[in-house]
């Protein structure tokens, strides 16, 4: 596997259609030729700063030409690109930086960055990362050869601390061979937009793996998924393929006023959480396209269960994407019969081989024979898979992970919380965190307290982790050894 395959593919596009728009950002265009040139310039910059093969390069940047170019420049010099979500908490950001130990941290110039990171920092312009410097004409190749180049994405762990998931550079090209032929067809003339950002496997795979991989045009959206901004971008740039999550589709449906021109869309994709069947129907009524639902994980690299155009089955995750093998097993690891829920395991190309610095987590998830334990539960009938929840207590809300322990620890710092448990509640097919609180004796458990507790979490954790409801209980269900039985709290 050529570890520079994505770079080679890009060079091919730049040779065949140099002036074609690769990226559109804030109304300005970056051509394929310019992108490749800028990657060379930034690769030179990384080498000048002694970034060696295998070194991590942390990228704390919005979805922007800067993030795309620095990411690919890191691969070009054999380093490991670590894109970090700008919206993580400061505590998580510092944890990630200390865990990954990057040689360099790249961030946006002109802003106040509050970080305890003592290492080398490089400021970059989000729209014009390479300025107007002349580039060498050397091809994009790993400085010292070998398979050291790659990227690492951080995902939430059940303890609440992020876990690094390393991938080889070649893993980025896997969706071009698996997902693209089955789901996209010929997408070279498409205009892509993703509401999932590049620090997430979904957003990274769609934007750099697929959009740039097929030589299409990618519209970059640096901000949060505001419905008006999204519909504005779709209309202005004639976006034809849109990748998002159910919560954003729902917010688009709620915000629509009938004046949006979404006629350019030919394909809408959803992942990150299971798409409720009514949302599928609503989007079809509005846009005249099927939202294709699928499932992938940070560890699997990209989507391996998917609906296909023309045969979408609402309320399902579709079928196994060619190139992957899937098993549903019981607690003993034996295959379950059709129609019985089981733990979802996957095998195929592009899977992560382990977690960064986490041998125990690695042993639990990366199994012999190349099988990956996802922690998801599914049931299969006639080849179609349906999501059935998690085998553990993790919650997916708004397409983003919520660790119950993290939210519980936060609530425990409030004086009116003696004990608490956080579990998922499901409303209209989507999951949200719910808090179950035992207040100390003498404390009035009413709506005001619930509001105060939610605000307490809101002030400390990302918004999607805030409990959608707070229920007060006299006690929490616990095992004989005192562990909270969160599955008994689910609503």
């Amino acid at each position, binding site marked *: 596997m050529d570890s520079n395959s994505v770079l080679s593919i890009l060079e091919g596009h730049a040779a065949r259609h140099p002036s074609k728009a690769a990226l559109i950002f804030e109304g300005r265009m970056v051509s394929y030729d310019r992108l490749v040139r800028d990657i060379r310039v930034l690769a030179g910059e990384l080498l000048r700063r002694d970034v060696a093969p295998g070194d991590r390069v942390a990228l704390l940047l919005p979805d922007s030409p800067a993030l795309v170019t620095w990411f690919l420049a890191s691969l070009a010099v054999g380093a490991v690109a670590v894109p970090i979500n700008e919206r993580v908490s400061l505590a998580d950001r510092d944890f990630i930086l200390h865990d990954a130990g990057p040689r360099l941290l790249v961030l946006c110039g002109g802003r106040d960055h509050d970080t305890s990171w003592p290492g080398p920092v490089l400021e970059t312009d989000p729209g014009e990362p390479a300025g107007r410097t002349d580039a060498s004409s050397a091809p994009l190749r790993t400085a010292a050869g070998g398979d050291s180049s790659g990227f690492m994405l951080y995902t939430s762990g059940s303890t609440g601390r992020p876990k690094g998931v390393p991938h080889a550079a070649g893993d980025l090209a896997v969706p071009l061979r698996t997902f693209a032929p089955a789901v996209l067809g010929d997408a070279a003339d498409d205009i892509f937009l993703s509401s999932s950002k590049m620090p997430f496997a979904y957003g990274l795979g769609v934007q750099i793996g697929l959009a740039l991989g097929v030589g299409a045009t990618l519209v970059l959206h640096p901000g949060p998924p505001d*419905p*008006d901004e999204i519909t504005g971008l779709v209309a202005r740039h004639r976006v034809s393929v849109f990748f998002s999550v159910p*919560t*954003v589709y*729902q*917010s688009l*449906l*709620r*915000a*629509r*006023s009938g004046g949006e021109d979404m006629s350019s869309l030919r394909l809408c994709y959803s992942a990150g959480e299971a798409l*409720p069947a*009514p949302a599928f129907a*609503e989007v079809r009524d509005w846009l005249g396209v099927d939202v294709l639902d699928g499932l992938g994980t940070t560890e699997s690299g990209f989507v391996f269960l998917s609906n296909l155009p023309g045969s979408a089955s609402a309320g399902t995750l579709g079928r196994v994407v060619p190139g992957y093998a899937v098993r549903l097993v019981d607690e003993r690891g034996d295959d379950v019969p059709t129609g019985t829920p089981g733990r979802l395991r996957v095998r195929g190309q592009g899977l992560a081989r382990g977690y960064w610095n986490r041998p125990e987590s690695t042993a639990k998830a990366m199994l012999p024979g190349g099988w990956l334990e996802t922690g998801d539960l599914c049931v299969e009938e006639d080849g179609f898979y349906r999501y059935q929840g998690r085998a553990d207590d993790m919650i997916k809300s*708004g397409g983003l992970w919520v660790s119950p322990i993290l939210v519980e620890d936060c609530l425990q710092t409030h004086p009116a919380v003696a004990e608490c448990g956080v579990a998922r*509640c499901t*409303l*209209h*097919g*989507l999951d*949200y965190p719910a808090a179950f609180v035992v207040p100390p004796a003498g404390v009035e458990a009413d*709506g*005001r307290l*619930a*509001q105060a507790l*939610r*605000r307490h979490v*809101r002030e400390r954790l990302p*918004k*999607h982790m*805030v409990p*959608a*409801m707070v229920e007060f209980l006299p006690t929490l269900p616990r095992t004989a050894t005192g562990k909270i039985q969160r599955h008994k709290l689910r609503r």
Partner: protein
Amino acid sequence: MTVTREELLDLFLDAGVEPDVVDGLDPSLPLARQGVDSVDYPAILLAIADRFKVSISEKEACELKTLEDFEKRLNR
């Protein structure tokens, strides 16, 4: 039952919608375009179920876009 606008706005505040968003709401425009986001919506629906004992179905929820829509539904 009767639910006044004031009671409904009070519920929005309790559900976590920012006070300046609640203060500035145009009752005839979609809430999702006025700062009520995808994390506020489930909290609002759950609070309505809890406080007014009204259970809103998924189909109904899709049609509740403005403050006036909510008032009409709750005062049926």
